[in-house]
Each structure stands twice: as C-alpha cells, then as structure tokens.
C-alpha cells in the first residue's frame, strides 16, 4: 500500500521508512512562521530558560495583526519582536504593511514543496498551496520549537478531494470552497490531511489554490495540500529561497475518504452567519441589505481578486448605504493592482483602502461593525462576533459577490454585473 502525502513527508522528516495514521512522530520543522503573536512566543521562550533560537534561518516573522499599532502597548510588543530578531540574527523579519504573513511567506519563497512548515496562526495551512506540509500551532509550542528545534505531530488520516469539471462564468475558487465546506461541515475534516486533486485542481492558478488550502482549517483540517506541479514550479522559479524536493502521494495511497466535487454544478455561494458550513447558492439570500463589504484577508485579496472586483465596480459607484473596505493581501499584490489600474477603479467607485494586514477579519483591527449590521466578506470566518460585534452578522462570499453587493446595497448574484 502506498503512502499519502502526509504519511510520506512525515516518514521522511522523522527518519522512518513508513508511518501510519495515529502514530506520533518527532521532527525538525523546515521553517517556522509567526506574526504579532511572536511577542508571546518570545515571552514563553525566555520563561523556558532558552537563550538562543536553534536555527535563526528557520524563523520567518511578518507583522500583520495590528498594522499600524493603535496603542503604546501594541507598538512596544512589536518593538520587542524587532529587538529579538536583531538579538538572534533572524533575517526574515517583515515589517507591518508588507502584507498578511501567510501571503508574504509564500510570495517571498520561504515555504516550499516537500517542507514541514508550522506557524502561530490557524491559517498556516495556506502554505499547502505550494505542496508544503503546513499547519498552525500555538505560541508556547513555537517557543518550544525555537528553543529545541523539535515538534511532535500525530500522523493524520487523509481525505482526498477530487475536483473535476470547470466552474462557469461568475463562479470562482471561493465558491468551490464554500460549497465544499457546506458539504463536509465544520468538523468534516477534523484532524485530517486534505489532498486537493482532480483536473480542476490541476487547472487552478496558485492564487485559486491558495483560497482552498487556506480555508481547509474551517473544516477542521490539519493540512490542505496541492501537489507540486508545473504551475507550482513556475510560480517558485526565481522566488524560492532554497532548493526543494517535492513530495508526492503514491498512486496507491490509502485514503480514509474520497470526496468528488463537480465544479460545473457550483453556483455563486454565500455562507450564512454563525458557521462556515452554512453555504447556500446566492439566490437564496438575494435581496438581503448589507452595510459593509470587506475585500481583504489571506483568503481572497490578491491581485486577481481585486481585478475581479474591479470588473464589477468599473464605471459604477458604491450603493450609498455600503462601506467597501479594501485590504490587498500584500504590498506586492497591491502594487500589481495599482499598476493594472484596478485600484483606481476601486477608488473611483468609493472604496476605502486599509494597510495590508489582517484588518477586521479577526475582529481586532479596523472595520468593526455596528449593532444589527451585515458585512459581506471575502474572508474565511463568520462565527458570532468574528468582526468585533456579537450583534452583527458576517456573510462569506467570493470577491465578485462582495463587489456586486457593494454596488447593489444588498446581496445579489454577481453574474449579471459581470456580463455588462
């Protein structure tokens, strides 16, 4: 019996011929990621009595949660991180404003195929986009890794998701993911590795794959991975910081479950508030007024997402009752949208631009909702209180559906606006 991606990479990295699901292995991660929470990591690191990070070349930090900081305390936290990086010789430090950490680590070539990468954030699973075994851990755990270079991991069983067919015009990778979440549920992949496969997966761009890898945690997944292929290698050419050796699942690997999704049957989706698996076709909630539209987050705010929104907003103005917040996933993605003219289109429509960071996606920074308001968002989570107010609602959608709602003042099918 062959090995899944997870079994193969964890066996290799722990020096064994083969491992099986449920087994605990110990290994040295290839790269670690952190952001503003690094201030906590440093505190725990020192409390353990550690003085030197085991390998400063395996630490990547990008500030993104409080960009720029609002308070003296937040600013001092960030200063502690800068001081620590200088003290330890950590070179991969990216200042607030560079972008969301998950976007930057991938675009700067620090997370690579065949590597084990862990980050102090649940959306670290995003780096599965380029074929890494990537997952989130807590700050104390990261301190332990920085101090000892070691982490224990339980080998996950694997669910393979076969994506076939091609989605229609006005339907996007985000809609595919929201449909998949509705089908599997928020714990449908709990503790599982998810391998995305099939002809549709192979045809996806890196940005599209990123959306799926990113939201795998919303199903409880440990990792969400796309096999490294020509698309991956093209993306990483000139970008990868180190040589890499991709790991591929064996054709006869043993999957706990195989889920098939026909992408051609998927419509634009909207995920209802309270849980990430409450996705419905947009028609079921058409007409619901919204007050805020959020085009941001590591899920969907890259140049291609901004371009899709610009197509809908070109020559149009925001509905008078709607505020549109635009947060490019990184300065680099924002620059691309700037040079293409897309940012100007969004500005002319009435968008408000925020610094490249997590913003209100996690409820902690810039863009809180008022009581009774609805936000339609290109982000990844919508549990009660997610955007800073328990008395407000968050609807998840693709950038097209977000832009369409911003124009209409209510949730609408984006397809007619794309045809104009």
């Amino acid at each position: 019996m062959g090995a899944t991606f997870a079994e193969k990479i964890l066996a290799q990295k722990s020096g064994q011929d083969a491992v099986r699901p449920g087994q605990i292995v110990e290994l040295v991660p290839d790269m670690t990621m952190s952001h503003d929470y690094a201030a906590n990591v440093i505190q725990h690191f020192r409390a353990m009595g550690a003085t030197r990070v085991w390998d400063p070349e395996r630490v990547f930090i990008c500030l993104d949660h409080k960009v720029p900081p609002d308070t003296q305390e937040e600013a001092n936290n960030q200063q502690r991180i800068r001081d620590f990086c200088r003290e330890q010789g950590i070179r991969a430090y990216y200042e607030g404003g560079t972008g969301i950490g998950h976007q930057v680590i991938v675009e700067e070539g620090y997370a690579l195929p065949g590597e084990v990468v862990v980050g102090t954030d649940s959306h670290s699973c995003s780096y599965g986009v380029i074929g890494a075994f990537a997952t989130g851990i807590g700050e104390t755990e990261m301190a332990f890794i920085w101090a000892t270079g070691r982490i224990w991991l339980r080998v996950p069983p694997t669910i393979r998701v076969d994506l076939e067919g091609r989605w229609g015009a006005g339907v996007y990778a985000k809609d595919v993911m929201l449909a998949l979440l509705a089908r599997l549920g928020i714990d449908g992949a709990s503790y599982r590795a998810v391998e995305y496969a099939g002809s549709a997966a192979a045809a996806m761009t890196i940005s599209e794959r990123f959306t799926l890898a990113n939201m795998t945690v919303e199903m409880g997944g440990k990792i969400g991975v796309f096999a490294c292929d020509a698309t991956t290698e093209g993306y990483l050419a000139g970008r990868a910081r180190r040589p890499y050796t991709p790991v591929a699942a064996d054709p006869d690997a043993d999957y706990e479950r195989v889920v098939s999704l026909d992408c051609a049957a998927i419509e634009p989706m909207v995920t209802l508030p309270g849980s990430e698996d409450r996705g419905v076709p947009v028609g079921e909630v058409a007409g619901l007024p919204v007050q805020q539209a959020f085009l941001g987050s590591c899920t969907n705010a890259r140049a291609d997402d901004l371009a899709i929104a610009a197509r809908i907003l070109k020559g149009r103005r925001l509905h008078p009752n709607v505020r549109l917040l635009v947060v490019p996933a990184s300065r680099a993605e924002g620059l691309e949208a700037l040079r293409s003219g897309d940012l100007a289109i969004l500005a002319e429509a009435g968008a408000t631009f925020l610094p490249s960071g997590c913003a209100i996606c996690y409820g902690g920074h810039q863009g809180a909702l008022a009581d009774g308001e609805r936000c339609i968002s290109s982000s990844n989570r919508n549990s009660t209180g997610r955007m800073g107010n328990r008395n407000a609602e968050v609807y998840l959608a693709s950038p097209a559906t977000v832009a369409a709602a911003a124009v209409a003042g209510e949730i609408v099918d984006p397809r007619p606006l794309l045809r104009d």
Partner: protein
Amino acid sequence: MPDPVLRGTLLRLGDDVRADHLLPPAYAFLQDAAEMGKYALSGLGREWPARLAGHSVLWAGRNLGAGTGREASAICLRGAGVRAIVAPSVARLFFRNAINNGILVLEVPEAADVAVEDGDEVEIDLAASSVRVRGTTLRFPPLPPLIQDIVAAGGLVEYGRRLLAAEAG
C-alpha cells in the same frame, strides 16, 4: 505522571463552541492567565465567566475550540481554574494549546450521551483511563505518555524548562 485521580465539578458547554468564544480577541492581548481568566467564555455572553467560577472541569459538546489558533483561548481557561476538559471531540489546534497549558483534554465519544448538569462531580482516573460522573463510568483511549508528561509538568513551558535544564546539565 499527572495526578492519577482528578476530582472537580463541571460546567456544561454546547456543541461547536469556538476558540473565539472561549476568549474574544479583545482580551487576547491581556498580560497574564489570571487576567484573561476573568473573561473566559465571555464570547458566549457576559454572564459566562461567573458561571464558570468554581468549576474545574468543562464538559463540552462536539468540536470544542474550532477556529482561531490563538493560545489565549486555552490560557484563559487555565487562568479561570479549569484543569480538565471532557468532550466527544475537540478541534486539533485547541487540543494542543490546552495540553500545552497543563489542561487535561479527554476526547470521550460517549460524553454526549450522559445527561450531566452544572455542578456535577467528575472523577478522572488517568491510570484507568476512565471518567466517572453521575454514577456512570466512561472509558477513553489512553493519552500518549508525552502528552501526559506535558500536562503533569503543568504545561509546555515548564516541560521545556526542565528539558533544556536537563540537556544543559
């Protein structure tokens, strides 16, 4: 090894209580566990920290702690005096964060079948891999030794401190 027998009273939680509900992000940047503990469970409503007071066992529903991986969601529970969690299923990152903060996390599928009430006495016997409540004894798969050691040390910081001291000495 952790205390073989842990006794305490329980507070019930429903299904799908998110990590964001255990501690909303507004409190995640507080300085220490005791401070955070004052707001534990406040994402469910303002009355919940008071409801938790005095109970050391959380008897939760399915999929406890899903969503954000912010460790504050586990730290606040430690700060509020929670020593053990019993649930049919627990989200993976929250599981790790709770263990790393010295909280025993037991995934017991049959926990959903026992009609417990707030304040019920719970007895956890690690050596026997059993949980006793309302006259019912439930069994769970033994926790791996490494995990038991981390909890016994009071969490990963102390476990790490001892490990580094031993390796240096």
